[in-house]
């Protein structure tokens, strides 16, 4: 694991040089030269921070849906089949450091997965019995089975996964992407986040997971509710008709035009005039985007909208599809709320916990993949499945019984589908029992670099100057996983 480097620089200058020398040509300047953004100088592009921008290079993916499997999904119970763990079931894991997980005093013996694994599709990718629906789509998925991270604790690991640092300070992936690319539909938010709608809390660290950090506030994620008014202030105030509001806005337009005449050539003033027109259009168009009831029955059924246990997540997946269809750049949906039984955090009983949360999401996500595919949108929509860390192959004792699994920063699993990824492949491996990433290990920076790459953005060139330093999402690390890129 790379040692933490506060300043985003590493000690070994040779390594840094090497890293930077891999950067490639200087086309970044040309492509992003409209982005003259710096701390405090947002005014220079106050015109429209969300204007569509050309990426550095070619990227198949135009938009992203990240299904954030919150709480730490167990790789050895989902996609990373470990026959070695079956054999070693009940044995002690030699040399295991009890402080690896969260509960150092409840470490039990190795525990084989309570779920049955089978190979699926033409590619023969393994999937556990948790995913009867998703297992039919493994040929679309590119697995990363050697993910590891820096923290064994939810919020630092969540911050890592979202922002690349284990602290609360930096912009998240969605913010970087919208900063780099703008959006395709000015009438909808560019970056949308949906969290658990069943009152099970927000992910640890709350809104900092979709915050824009030191990037201008315009790039923070918009938190969209799946019920009621999805975005604040979309509804006209009571007692005002559309005609009356239109008249009012026309009057504002007149006031502004007169003001602009006295201050010609002021970009900010012009931009603000336009923002009112955009707002009006958003108010007209956005509600339609969230009207999933208008979807035909077979689509609703495809996502599992009528099935009680997964209805809430189905709604969110369907909303996500409708949003990306209309040009929203980045959508992130959190499965599960806070910790323990409220998310994939199966400390007490892994079987029960994962059965529940896989049950909530399996059919909706499978529906989303199928639906995107049939609409021809999967090819340029990147779908990501993954969370903050994996779980340990050793059990966590619960009431003395070896039924749970604790956090595992050393190993975890991701998959990506669509958006230029190579379906039916698998990259990297964990050790025999799934304790640590062992072959072709992958850090979160590598995943971030790959996401940006698929979008046509060079992770080494997408930078922002803040407090005297040029920051990147990938810090000084990050390696594009070309093996999973088609």
């Amino acid at each position, binding site marked *: 694991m790379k040692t933490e480097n506060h300043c985003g620089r590493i000690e070994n200058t040779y390594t840094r040089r090497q890293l930077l020398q891999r950067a490639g040509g200087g086309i970044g300047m040309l492509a992003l030269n409209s982005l003259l953004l710096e701390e405090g100088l947002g005014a220079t592009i106050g015109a429209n921070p969300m204007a569509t921008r050309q990426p550095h290079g070619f990227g198949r993916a135009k938009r992203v849906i990240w299904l954030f499997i919150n709480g730490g999904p167990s790789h050895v119970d989902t996609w990373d089949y470990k026959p070695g763990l079956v054999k070693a079931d009940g044995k002690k894991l030699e040399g295991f450091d009890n402080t690896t997980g969260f509960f150092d005093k409840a470490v039990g013996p190795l525990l084989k997965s309570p779920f049955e694994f089978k190979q699926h599709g033409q590619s023969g990718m393994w999937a556990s019995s948790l995913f009867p629906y998703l297992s039919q789509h493994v040929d679309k998925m590119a697995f990363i089975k050697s993910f590891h991270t820096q923290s064994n604790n939810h919020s630092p690991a969540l911050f890592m996964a979202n922002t690349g640092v284990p602290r609360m300070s930096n912009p998240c992936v969605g913010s970087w992407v919208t900063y780099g690319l703008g959006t395709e539909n000015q009438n909808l938010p560019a970056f949308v986040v949906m969290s658990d709608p069943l009152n099970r809390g927000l992910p640890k660290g709350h809104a900092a997971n979709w915050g824009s950090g030191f990037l201008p506030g*315009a790039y923070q994620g918009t938190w969209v509710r799946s019920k009621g008014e999805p975005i604040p202030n979309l*509804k006209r105030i009571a007692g005002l008709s559309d005609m009356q509001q239109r008249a009012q806005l026309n009057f504002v337009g007149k*006031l502004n035009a007169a003001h602009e005449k006295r201050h010609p050539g002021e970009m*900010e003033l012009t931009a603000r005039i336009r923002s009112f027109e955009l707002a009006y259009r958003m108010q007209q168009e956005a509600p339609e985007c969230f009207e999933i009831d208008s979807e035909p029955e077979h689509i609703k059924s495809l996502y599992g909208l009528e099935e009680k246990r997964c209805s809430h997540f189905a709604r969110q997946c369907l909303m996500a599809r409708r949003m990306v269809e209309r040009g929203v750049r980045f959508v992130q949906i959190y499965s599960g709320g806070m910790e323990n039984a409220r998310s994939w955090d199966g400390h007490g009983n892994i079987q029960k916990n994962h059965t529940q949360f896989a049950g909530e999401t399996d059919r909706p996500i499978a529906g989303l993949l199928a639906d995107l595919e049939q609409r021809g949108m999967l090819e340029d929509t990147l779908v990501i499945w993954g969370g903050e860390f994996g779980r340990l192959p050793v059990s966590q004792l619960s009431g003395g019984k070896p039924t749970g699994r604790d956090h595992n920063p050393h190993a975890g699993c991701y998959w990506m589908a669509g958006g230029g990824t190579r379906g039916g492949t698998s990259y990297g491996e964990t050790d025999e029992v799934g304790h640590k990433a062992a072959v072709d290990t992958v850090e979160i920076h590598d995943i971030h670099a790959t996401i940006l790459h698929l979008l046509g953005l060079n992770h080494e060139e997408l930078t922002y100057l803040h407090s005297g330093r040029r920051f990147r999402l990938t810090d000084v690390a990050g390696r594009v996983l070309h093996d999973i890129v088609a």
Partner: protein
Amino acid sequence: MNTLSYKQLWPAALLIGLPLMSLTGHAAEPGNDHAQKMAQSLKLFTGQVRTIFSEHCVRCHGGEKTRSDFDLATRRGLLAGGELGVAVVPGKPAESPLLAYLQHAEEPFMPLKKTKLAAQDIAAVEKWISLGAAYDAPLVEQSAAEPGPMQVTESDRAYWAFAPLKDNFPQEASIDHFIKAGGPAAPRVLARRLSFDLTGLPPAPQEVERFAGDTSADAHEKLVNQLLESPRFGERWARHWLDVARFAESHGFEQDYDRKFAFHYRDFVIRALNEDMPYDRFVRWQIAGDELEPKNPMAMMATGFLGAGVFPTQITISEAERVRYDAMDDMLATIGSGMLATTIGCARCHDHKYDPIPTRDYYRMLSAFTTTVRSDVDIDMSALDATGNTDLNKKIADAKAALDGYGREGLITAFRSWNKARLESSQETAKNPEWVILSPDSLISKGGATFTAQPDGSHLAGGKNPALDTYTFTAPAPADNLRAIKLEALADPSMNRGGPGRAKNGNIALSDLKLSCGGRAIKLANPRATFQQGGLPIAATIDNNAKSAWALDPQFGKDHAAIFELTNPSDCKAGQKLVFTLTFGNNTGHNIGRLRLSVSSHDPAGLKLDGKASPADLATRKIDSLIRSAKGNFDDKLRARLLELYKPLDPKWRELEGNLATLESGRKKAITKVMISSDGNKVKPMRHHTSSGSIPNFYKQTHFLKRGDTRQKGEVATLGFLQVLSRGEVPRPEKGRSAIADWITDTEAGAGHLLARVIVNRIWQHYLGEGIVATPNDFGLQGAEPTHPVLLDWLAHELIRNEWSLKHIHRLILNSNAYKAKRRPRRLEAEAIRDNALAVSELLDGKMYGPGTLSEGMLRRSIYFMIKRSKLVPVMQSFDWPDSLTSLGRRSVTTTSSQALIFINDPHMRRMAEGFAKRLSGATDPVTEAYRIAYGRRPSGEELTGARDFLTGQQQSHNGDKHKALSDFCGAIMSANEFIYIE
């Protein structure tokens, strides 16, 4: 004035997307003429290129420094390139970015921030590269192949930000002298600009009228002064500082627990700015108020600064130590960026890449915060908010008036007579020193120890150390009428644990002290000692009990003293024989190891034990030196200074002050919980929800860490400061944060000059839109350079010269032509936008201070919103509120449709529009009135017609509902650009 704001300050090198060097270029394949070319190249190198590089490049890119990781001192380093990638491709000048930098064809232009090299020099470099870029020898000895720890050099200290302030300003120095400004804006524009800039609120329409009609020469100055005195000033300017202080009221991270009592820090800032607290004190208290003035509620509130950063509340054991270093880093990094515009935090894992800050400086400073924790403590705030008994408040006011009155009138007379008497008596004292050290005719140890006289008049015992002993010290009396004796037992490294006793543990045990003069016994009384061990008091030496004694455990290794009074001084005459008998009959070998005896003919009550000067002495000395150095030139400032020093010495002043204090202490105590930052050994640290109880709140020591990694600990770090900002001896109080506070405000030996530069730049920025240094949080090499360096230094100098009065700097700027000039419109910040709407709607609740709320329906000023990190108030966040995670010197300004949606549809905004409409309902001409209130001007004829047309149409469509129509109109007025952009 246009030249000042919005000018191109940023070299494009600092912009996004700095091109990385192309890697497609390869060195030319060696051809047949390779050797020949290299020889030519070498000739060019020795003839020209070496000199060019040595003069222009090596200072930053070779030897001591390799900025941007680029070292051209050797060919190897040159070809290795740096952070920007490849620099030179031998044989291919067109693919060598170094050349483009020199030609100023590509950023960063080199030499950085210097003029371009001469054309023939660039041509030589180009030719040299094209021939193969040969070297004959490294450009500097021992090039940084294996760089040692960073050395801070005198040339580092000469960098503009770290250098002392210039002080040779022209006689006529003023802002107008430094900056040629355009013509002034119209009075109405200025009234509005001043009101928003100083208070964050719109001016009352009648105030605008009054100002526009005021033709007196000092109309502007008067308005400035009036606004500076408004309590709204503090509320406006505190918010600027809160951005810098990354202030919030929750921990952040997992649970984001509230810090319920953190708002007191916000109140401290408001109060401090309103009362024009000297900026050095403002800084000192935020760093160490709890150490410096623990009884002062303001000083305690100020320490909220240190604890305002994020902190994870759920920690696993393996993270605990890193988290603690993160927390300390947050304090230090915020002090660095916020107060010194220096990115100290960047030296945590390695020596700073750009600025002369070695990692060891970082950890030395960090160690000051080793035990610093957050704590909720009870503080009596009655001195801040006098509530309750009005009678008492009146008495207090009277007592204060009496004190102030005496300070203005009687004090000066008292000072003059005191000073006269002092001068006369000091001549006396010179003749008659307080203590005369006795030089013995004989000093004998009964048990056989030997004594060696020391240069300081003491006597060091050596040789045998008998179990029990008696010393006899004989000397002539130096004067008549001796009134006191002083016995000193002094430390010395020759003794166990430094003494002052010869016992195994360094202790003494003096059982009896007897004195005779001319053969007559002299009775000793009223003994006092610097320290006495429990059960072994100094009084035991004169109790005629040979067993009881005076001892010093555990204060070893220190000097000790005891004073005894002579009860019958007249019995002893000058020249008579004084005999001191010291008996050590209490404990084995507990004999004094280094003895000194002195006598005094002064009043014993006034004699000091430890030799240190009393506060009164210090004040007297200071007064004396001020008078001396004034050489007869007394100005008002010096007079004020002298009186300030004299106050505590004046009996009448003390009496009046005592009266006031007594009355104030009678005020009902207002005990309030306040979140402070203080020493975790002394206060109860705020506990967090953690996975186990074994995680400490802090660790005993701070170590040097390799790469910032807590698993790679080096030695324990001891307190130190940034070397580049230290000159000569910097005083170091024992308490770490007080030491930082002293150093940072020290204008001689410490960082005081930079501290002043940084704050005047911030003030300038908020008034003029852009700082003299455009990067307010980074004055380092990566930051911008000052556009007007002399002006910056002059303002900083003015600040220090005027006892760090910030309002003085505000006045200087506000009364300048640069400030008054015509300007382009600027958008108001989040708080001012919302407060403006509240003000014009007359819904504003002016209540100051106290806990805030997250409710968007709050009608108080926006600074009273609670700042909860995970739930930033949406309307504020929408208008670019800071993230409150790290120090922010300058907010960004974005324009988004979600902002417009707030103006269009937010129910709170509508409520304000309705409030505004209600305010207008009685007006005969609501349109004109609306313009006067919202825009500070009257509408033009065209505007009047347009507005009336809109109102008529809207009223019709609302079925004649006038209020609704007027509300729509007001909503539009508040949505328009003119409402939130000020000129």
